[in-house]
Every structure is written in structure tokens, then in C-alpha cells.
């Protein structure tokens, strides 16, 4: 199949159009963060830096960012460990119930968030008799983050095969040494990609969080939900969204570089 020049041009045009639609609302968010109108009318009646100043002095927002980062970091670490373990088990072993286990990993993301949310809420409070806190949020987030790590790692393991590990064992390395010096380095970029996605997933999660967060726990999405419909806070929320998108370029770029460096020619 050779795509003709016009076909390529049409595809490029469609791609550009889709990206335009993807970025149009984000651009509106960017412009509104400078708008003097608090009800977000278009075109903006005037421009101001007031919201940017307010955003960086808003303690509620900054605290919420810190809380969200803490939760996302711990949930990511837990899901990295559990996701790697489970992908090693499913990729390197044949056993009864293997399909059921792989379904089990996918389930927390495949079932709608509100179901996961009320199920965990009910389990924490009525079955285990726990107070909702920051820990319950972390447990809930880690549960649905496992799948992103799992998918990245198992795909990598499938591609790697076991030749290097076998060679390492033949040369006398123990299991741990083999994992540390042979398997882990080859998994590193897959772990980074999966971990990054897990972090993003946790950082932006609102529905499960609503049902598992204790009274004093304000993650960034919860804070945004509180403030979105307040006239004087909506533009501040826009500022925060813009900053998040800009900051996110760094980890995405690094992950891309790492993935690109290891890419097999197509």
C-alpha cells in the first residue's frame, strides 16, 4: 500500500483539524484565565493578570496540589510494585485461573468509577469499620492504577522473552541478581510509562475520590469541584489548569525520549 500524495495531505488535514478541536477548549481555558469576565463570556471583555496572582496566593489550591501529589505518588509506587509482580506472574507462568486474574486486574478500570467508589466506601466504612482518610483514597487509587503499570510491563515482558534471564541464571546469578541486573533495566522505561499514566490517572481522579476521601482531605479535583461554580474562583481554576498542562510537558517529553531511544524500527 502506497498512500498517494493527496491521500497523505487529506490525512494530515484531518489530523490538524482534530488537534484543533482538541486544543480549542484548552485555548478557551487559557484565554479565560486572563479574562476580566468571571462568567467566562466570549470574546473576553478585557484582560487582567488578577487571577494568576490570586491562584499563586490561594492556599486552598496549593494545599490541594500537595495533597494530590502525595496521594498520586504513593498510589503510583504501590501500583508499580503490584503491577510488576502480577505481570511477571501472568507472563512467565501458566496456571489455572490465569484468565480470571487478568480480568481481575482490568476490572477496577473497566467498571464505572461510581461503582468502584460506592463499593469501596461501603467496604471501608461498614465492613472494615474504618474512618475515611487520605489512606483510603490511596488504597482506592492504587487499586485502579495497577492496570496501567500491568499493561505496560506485560507488553514489555512479552517482547523480551526469557533468553537473557536464562543466560544470567546459567552464569550463576541468583534470582534477585538476575532481576536487579537483567530484567529490571529492560523494564525501566515500561515502568516509567506505566507509572506516569498511573500518576496522571490518580492526580485527576474525582469520582472514586469523592466516595473515599475523609472529611479533611481535599485533592485538587475535589477543590476544583468546590470552586468551579463560584464566580470569583472559576478563573483561578482556569489558571491552575493551564499551569498543570504546561508542567505536564516535562514528564511526557522525558517518557517519549526514553521510549524513542528504545524503539525497534518499524
Amino acid at each position, binding site marked *: *500500500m*502506497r*498512500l498517494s500524495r493527496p491521500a497523505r495531505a487529506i*490525512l494530515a488535514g*484531518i489530523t490538524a483539524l*482534530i*488537534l484543533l478541536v*482538541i486544543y480549542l*477548549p*484548552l485555548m*478557551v481555558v487559557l484565554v479565560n484565565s486572563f479574562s476580566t469576565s468571571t462568567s*467566562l463570556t*466570549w470574546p473576553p471583555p478585557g484582560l487582567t493578570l488578577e487571577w494568576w496572582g490570586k491562584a499563586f496566593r490561594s492556599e486552598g489550591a496549593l494545599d490541594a496540589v500537595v495533597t494530590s501529589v502525595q496521594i498520586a505518588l504513593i498510589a503510583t509506587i504501590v501500583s508499580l*510494585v*503490584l503491577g510488576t*509482580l*502480577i505481570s511477571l*506472574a501472568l507472563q512467565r*507462568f501458566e496456571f489455572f485461573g490465569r484468565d480470571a486474574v*487478568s*480480568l*481481575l486486574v*482490568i476490572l477496577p*478500570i473497566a467498571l*464505572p468509577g*461510581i*461503582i*468502584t467508589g*460506592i*463499593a469501596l466506601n*461501603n*467496604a471501608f466504612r*461498614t465492613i472494615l469499620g474504618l474512618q475515611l482518610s487520605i489512606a483510603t483514597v490511596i*488504597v*482506592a487509587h492504587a487499586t485502579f492504577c*495497577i492496570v496501567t503499570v500491568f499493561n505496560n510491563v506485560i507488553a514489555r515482558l512479552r517482547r523480551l522473552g526469557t533468553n537473557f534471564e536464562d543466560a544470567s541464571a546459567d*552464569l550463576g546469578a*541468583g*534470582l*534477585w541478581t538476575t532481576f536487579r541486573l537483567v530484567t529490571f533495566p529492560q523494564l525501566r522505561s515500561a515502568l516509567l510509562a506505566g507509572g506516569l499514566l498511573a500518576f496522571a490517572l490518580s492526580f*485527576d481522579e*474525582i*469520582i472514586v475520590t469523592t*466516595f473515599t476521601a475523609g472529611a479533611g482531605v481535599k485533592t485538587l*479535583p475535589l477543590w*476544583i*469541584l468546590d470552586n*468551579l461554580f463560584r464566580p470569583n474562583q*472559576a478563573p483561578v*481554576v482556569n489558571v*491552575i*489548569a*493551564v499551569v498543570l*498542562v504546561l*508542567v*505536564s*510537558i516535562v514528564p*511526557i517529553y522525558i517518557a*517519549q525520549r526514553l521510549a524513542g531511544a528504545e524503539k525497534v524500527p*518499524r
Partner: protein
Amino acid sequence: MTVDAPAQPELRAVVPPHRDTIARRGSVLLSKHPRLRLTLLLSAPLFWLGLVYIAALAALLITALWTVDTFTGTISQTWTLDNIITVLTGSLYQTVTVRTVGVAVLVTVIDIAVALPIAFYMAKVASPRWQRILVIAVLMPLWASYLVKAYAWRSVLSQDGIYEWLVAPFGGHTPGYGLPATIITLSYLWLPYVILPIYAGLERVPDSLLEASGDLGGKTGATLRLVVLPMIWPAIIAGSIFSFSLSLGDYITVNIVGGANQMLGNLVYTNVGAANNLPLAAAIALIPIVIIFGYLAVVRRTGALENL
């Protein structure tokens, strides 16, 4: 002394004898017993998922069979099928289920239709440099908060928003808030989750196969239909699981841009919160659970679950 030293055996590389440490013994034990290795690998994740997730889900399903004491507002553990029957026969629940599934299906179809061309361009046409830029461009909006994006669409589609401003000169009007706005916003929100697996699937299709098809006389359309589509089908299904399931449970977007419309998620939410009727909420939650399990069972054979 003129006696030649014998060949020096100590200079030959020798594997040093193993030190008999605990780690070594453990390693030997584990190497000999793959089942033990498997058990150790699986125990922590299964403990977590089984205890945290499956137990919680099971408990929720059991709650659906209980009832709420109308006087005290507490859950009384008397077994009854009333909630299930209410949900199955109530016209409200039927209408909302049809509406929710309809929205989820439409969102999924729109997302796949949009994702296919851009993913194809990214994977097969763009230069490696542009490929990287495009992946970043698709990934970046994921980091703008879900709420902010939904709210941005509220602002875009409002009566004095940018959409009205753009199309009014051509006699168009904004659809306002309602189901169309909900479908647009949900499609927008889940689009990256659909593009990424399809892009990854297309990346795994070797260019040589496309060339072979072309050399054998396959026209572009035939190659896409007979070579590319079967290979990326699991990836498409994987993407659809995201958009379908995420739409099925959503209640926040429909609150922000959906006007007065309700989806299943809203019914669950009101019953947990304002109505304080967890058993009924659990019974309503059964609807999406059954739908998702049905969907997963149908698509399992495509191998899609390995492409998420």
C-alpha cells in the same frame, strides 16, 4: 632455578564457589520450585485486589438485597428482592438505562471514528520527529483536569460562548446544554484514551505487510480493510472499553453540560447521597455492572483485554 613454572592454573577465569548465604539458598529453593515462585509473585497483588476490590464489590451486591428502614434511615439486613424488582420494572430506570447506553455507544463510535485517522497518521505517515510531537500533543490534554475540560465545554457551548460566536455569522447556533452537549463533551474527554491504544496497535503493524499487500495488487481500501483492520481490531476494542465504561458511569459531565438530563450515575449518586438508600443505589449499580461484564465477555476472545 631454571625449572619452568607449570602453566598457571590460577590465572584461568574460574567461577568462584558459591557462598552459602541465605539469599543463595532462597534463590536455589525458588529456582527448583516454580510454583512457590508463582505463589510469592501472586500473593501480594491478589491479596490486595481480592481483599480490597472483590470483597467490596461482593458486599455491594449483597447490600442490593437488603433494605433501608424508613424510620431510622439505617440499613436493615432483611433479605428482599424489592430493590432489584424496582430497578427492573421502574420506567424511570428503563428510560435512564436506554439513555445512558445510547450516550455511551454514541460516544464510543464518535471516538473510534475520530481516533482512527489521527492514529493512522501518527503511526504510519508522520516522520519520527512529528510522531513524537503528535504523541505529546495527544497526551497533554490528559493532564488538564477532567473538571476543567468539562467546564471549558460549558463555556464553549454557552449562549455567549465561543461556539455561538464562531457559527452565528453562518446562521448556526450552539446546541446549548443537553444530551448533544453531553455526548460532545464525553467524546472529547475520552478521546486520548481511545487514540493511544489504536496508535499503539497501528505501530505494531509492520510497514512491510502494507507494502506486500500493495505489491500483490491490494488497493489502499482493500489493504486497510483486509490487512490493517483485522490486526488493530483488538486495539480498537480496547479503546472502546475505556470510552464505553467511562461514559456509562459518568454523572459529573452530565451535571455540568447536560441540562436536566440524568444518567445512571446520577441515579446511583442521588440514592447514595441525598436519598440515603444504599441498597437501591447498589441495585441500580448492577445495571452497568451487568452491561460491562456482558461487553467484556463478548470482546474477550478478540484479545482486546491484552491491549488496554
